[in-house]
């Protein structure tokens, strides 16, 4: 039962970013909003983990997620201010937010090792989804060179997070 829930959730997370797949190329204000939202959602997930988990590795990972995503989003906001780009809400950001809220509610019911495993599994899946979107959709669509460059650095950071999450996941087994 538990396994089927994980599989279903993993499938949900690994599906392409909703709405983006069908819609036309996203604009810079939309791309900025999606990237910022993804970072903020990962911070929220990490905060939940810091409240619930007692595992040292999991807590260290969550702590790093809060620090890294806060630092990246701060840089992103500074750049957007400089470029006078106002992030624009869009269906992809909304769907991501909705998915993350459902995931948080799901995780809220778990505790101990079950929570740790579900949180870290979702971190692997979430970063995979966002990295895939950055690589195949957001970076190629970005028209401003500075925004593109920030997204490229972001991709490297998040690929690091994906590997870090995989390491923590391996430790939990």
């Amino acid at each position, binding site marked *: 039962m538990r396994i089927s829930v994980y599989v279903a959730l993993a499938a949900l997370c690994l599906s392409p970013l909703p709405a983006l797949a069908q819609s036309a190329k996203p604009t810079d204000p939309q791309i900025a909003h999606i990237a910022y939202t993804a970072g903020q959602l990962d911070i929220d997930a990490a905060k939940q983990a810091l409240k619930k988990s007692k595992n040292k590795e999991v807590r260290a990972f969550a702590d790093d997620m809060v*620090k890294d995503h806060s630092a990246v989003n701060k840089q992103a906001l500074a750049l957007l201010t400089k470029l006078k780009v106002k992030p624009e809400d869009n269906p992809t950001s909304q769907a991501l937010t909705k998915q993350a809220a459902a995931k948080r509610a799901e995780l809220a019911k778990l505790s101990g090792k079950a929570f740790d495993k579900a949180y870290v599994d979702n971190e692997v899946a979430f970063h995979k989804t966002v990295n895939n979107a950055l690589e195949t959709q957001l970076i190629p669509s970005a028209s401003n060179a500075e925004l593109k460059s920030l997204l490229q650095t972001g991709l490297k950071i998040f*690929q690091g997070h994906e590997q870090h999450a995989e390491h923590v996941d391996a430790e939990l087994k």
Partner: protein
Amino acid sequence: MQPGRIVFIAAALCGVVCAVPARADTIKVEIKNLVNTPATVNAKVGDTIVWTNKDVLQHTATATDKTFDVLLPPGKTGSTVVTKAGTFDYFCKFHPNMKGKVIVTP
């Protein structure tokens, strides 16, 4: 022990001591946008490796065999003195896709 022999030992000891380089070097590595530059550095035993982290993120330089584990807060430096010869691959604990190598000769 005969005096001649003591002189011989002293001379031999001096030979060992004097063979050690007079000054250890400092070798610098810069981290920017999750890249260690240079990615590979050559050092001698006794040298100091200094990493300067120019990112807004916390990094580490962690040897895969745990020989060293240097925490590098954003905008700060961190260092380690290499005490044994060998090739040490290292990575960042927080971003394991960041890699580097320190080659230490005696």
